């Protein structure tokens, strides 16, 4: 390409072009390295000029708006709503091998359980890497409960746990906004957890007490 852009590259970096004019520049620099280099250089000056502006810190609301769309905040009320939903789902699955103790019928009760417990946590080892996919198990040191959180969970993710009672399939958990959670009170403490996606191991961890 021999025809290079003129002043529009610098005007682009300063935000002075209309959207349709920017599209022309974008298309051009995608195929013209000299013009791309000039645009990058102009944007670096734009960034230097930005460093001279009065500084403003973002509000907490902006972070919540942005991150809330991608992943759940670490400690938020909505986090516990997911726990409650997962819990109720599990109750409805007629899971016979584990006996629930006192039924937790509200998110507040679940929250209170964690607040008044000593617990450990473990990240599950991922066997099927996927963007954003990760899982963590939080569990009471006395083995009385376990809370599983799966970020960017594949659809139809089965949870299998290991205990002295043997290997038990707890059924599927369903993500809400990309996050799936499960809260269980086992009769015997869980020593291992495995996630299955499409019947194949997706993630696993041992729970050490």
């Amino acid at each position, binding site marked *: 390409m021999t025809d290079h852009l*003129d*002043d*529009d*590259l*610098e*005007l*682009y*970096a*300063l*935000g*002075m*072009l*209309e*959207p349709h004019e*920017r599209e022309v520049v974008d298309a051009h620099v995608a195929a013209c390295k000299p013009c*791309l280099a*000039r*645009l*990058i*250089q*102009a*944007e*670096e*000056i*734009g*960034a*230097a*000029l*930005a*460093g*001279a*502006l*009065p*500084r*403003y*810190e*973002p*509000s907490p*609301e*902006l*972070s919540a*708006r*942005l*991150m809330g*769309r*991608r*992943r759940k905040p670490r400690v938020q009320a909505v986090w516990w709503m997911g726990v409650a939903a997962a819990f109720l789902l599990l109750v409805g699955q007629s899971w016979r091998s584990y006996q629930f103790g006192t039924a937790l019928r509200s998110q507040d009760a679940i929250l209170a359980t964690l607040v008044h417990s000593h617990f450990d946590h473990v990240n599950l080892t991922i066997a099927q890497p996927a*963007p*954003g996919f990760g899982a963590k198990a939080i569990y009471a040191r006395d083995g009385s409960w376990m809370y599983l959180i799966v*970020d*960017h969970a594949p659809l139809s993710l089965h949870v299998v746990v290991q205990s002295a009672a043997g290997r038990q399939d707890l059924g599927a958990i369903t993500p809400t906004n990309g996050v799936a959670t499960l809260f269980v009170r086992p009769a015997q403490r869980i020593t291992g957890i495995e996630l299955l996606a499409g019947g194949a191991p997706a993630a696993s961890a041992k729970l050490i007490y």
Partner: protein
Amino acid sequence: MGSAGDRLTADFIARRPEGLARVYEYYASDLVSVARHVLGNRGAAEDCVHDALLRIWRTPGSYHPERGALRSFLIACVRNQAMTMLRGSTRRTDRERANYQLESTAQPPTELQIGDHVEVARLRAAMERLPSDQRVALEHAYFKNKTQRQIADDLGVPLGTIKSRISHAMRTLADELREPEVSRS
């Protein structure tokens, strides 16, 4: 760019959630400051940053390392988004425009703030060395957020001349700041 910066960029390009979170952690203050300088109030500025970041995040291929440093790229994107919002507001009613400019009209920043940042000091010195007609055009463009036409009208010179002055000013600054800094004692 160091390895931490490389990881940040790689995570952002791969659209990993931690990539967006770390970009926010590193650059949100820069981006909000840029948007607020243009739009004048916090709400509009944060709307601008929110929309620009999510658009880039959700559009595969919108950024790649060959496109330059991620920080510079994001700042340019937010500045473009903010200027588009501002121009749009000036085309609407005066009442709507006041919503965007309420705070900026109260305290218009018209010149470089004196900071302790070395690059800012170098930039200020470099701007002072620009030919006055170029410096004035650039100040109108960046610090007063004026359109090409507004600058041309304010200064009473043809539109093409304004474009040329701004472009030359930017290129001169790039040349000056590319030179290694010399410390003197």
